[in-house]
């Protein structure tokens, strides 16, 4: 079947917003369908002990609005630390709600990682350190309750992202894919499948990507993250430092057409590596993402045609 891109329902291709993205949008904005925003980067958090805790980064929201005008915006938080065995940070949640009211996120994602514990936090400045969570029923209850609270507060869909893990927690009650499957089936919480995090885990932990992806129920995946990383003292890190590795592209091309609810493909990089990638490198990523989106829509059209003819 010959298919043009406009005739098929196609996942969107977008970029994680960072201070270098306005320049990218000026140069190749026509290739960017949506922008994913880390709201925590739009404000200063002066700490829980302060009365007037949050203050907006001067000009950041205005610039973001100017550059995302007419584009879909997705929220991607890093601060709520949903698996923490402590109450949700209500003031931060209020701030996320305010941000959603201002920017209108199509959905909101967080991480299946631990960033905060009582009286201590784990800094996540750049190199992607979130602590692993215990994959057991207790954690599932904690995460589930907070996902419900977040969904209620925002009135939009919630996704959780699979983490990079250096130290898997022994004796889990369930595998990570099973945890995500359960989140979806019991709570309607979709998965943000970060294929580069999975890539890091295959290198550092020796796990099989095909086994991991094969265990996921296909309908759980709503968004895919792509990125590049670096070796650091013998470990591969999710440093968002460059182009997506070829192996990750291979997985994306094999698996993405199998995910019926996939709506978005996002490339993330850190602004400090903008010079390394350059506009040429980012354009190349976007071209590959649009090719991938087309492949997904072609597979969907084929499935639909097959269903109509009962093949």
């Amino acid at each position, binding site marked *: 079947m010959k298919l043009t891109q406009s005739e098929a329902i196609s996942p969107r291709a977008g970029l994680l917003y960072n201070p270098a993205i306005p320049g990218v949008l000026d140069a190749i904005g026509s290739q960017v369908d949506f922008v994913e925003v880390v709201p*925590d980067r739009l404000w*200063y*958090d*002066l*700490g829980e002990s302060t009365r*007037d805790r949050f*203050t*907006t980064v*001067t000009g950041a929201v205005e610039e973001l609005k100017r550059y995302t005008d007419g584009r879909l915006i997705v929220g991607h938080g890093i*601060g709520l630390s949903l698996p*923490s*065995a*402590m109450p949700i940070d209500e003031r931060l949640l209020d701030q996320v709600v305010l941000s959603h009211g201002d920017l209108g996120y199509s959905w909101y994602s967080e991480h299946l990682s*631990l960033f905060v*514990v*009582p*009286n*201590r*936090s*784990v*800094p*996540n*400045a*750049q*190199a*992607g*350190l979130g*602590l*692993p969570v*215990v994959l057991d029923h*207790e*954690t599932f209850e*904690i995460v589930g309750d907070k996902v419900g609270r977040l969904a209620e507060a925002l009135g939009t869909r919630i996704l959780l992202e699979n983490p990079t*893990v*250096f*130290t*898997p*927690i*022994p*004796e889990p009650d369930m595998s990570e894919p099973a945890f995500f499957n359960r989140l979806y089936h019991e709570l309607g919480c979709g998965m943000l499948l970060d294929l580069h995090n999975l890539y890091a885990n295959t290198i*550092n*932990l020796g796990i099989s990507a095909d086994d991991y992806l094969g265990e996921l129920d296909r309908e759980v995946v709503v968004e895919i993250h792509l990125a590049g990383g670096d070796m*650091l*003292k013998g*470990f591969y*890190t999710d440093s968002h430092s460059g182009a997506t590795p070829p192996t990750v592209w291979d997985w994306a091309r094999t698996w993405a057409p199998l995910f019926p609810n996939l709506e978005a493909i996002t490339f993330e990089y850190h602004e400090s590596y903008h010079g390394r990638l350059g506009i040429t490198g980012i354009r190349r990523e976007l071209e590959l993402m649009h090719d991938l989106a087309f492949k997904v829509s072609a597979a969907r059209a084929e499935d639909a045609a097959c269903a109509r003819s009962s093949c």
Partner: protein
Amino acid sequence: MLVDFQRALAELTASPDLCREVRADPLMLRSRYDLTSKEWRRLVGIVTSRGMEANCILYRANRLAPIALNLPDTCTALGNDLNQLLSAYWESEPVTDVHFLVEANRFCQFLFSQEALPAYAARELRREAAHISAKLELLSWHRQAR
């Protein structure tokens, strides 16, 4: 208790010394934290795994970022003393401030409280701390103006 398990995991990640202590004497975790047998086994498994080194490296790299970005000359001037001072600071301030300027300013206050800083390092510290204070003042002004 899960909350103690998580706290232990975060404290181990912040302290290579504590990791070494636990490797030498795993039972010390039981006296320090309220853990079930399964949680204790899990923590011992984590601490003795190769990946714990990566957790510790990334923790230090991420805490170092706001200080290195805002106090580069002070860091250079402190030379071999920097590592020990950073460890002492991180031990005394376990909650990271996500705001880089505030985090750097807190490190400045910590350094000012140290008695025997080399004169050259103290001079660089005063200069860079004043710059950070000025930026924070500006931020404060923005907040009041809103």
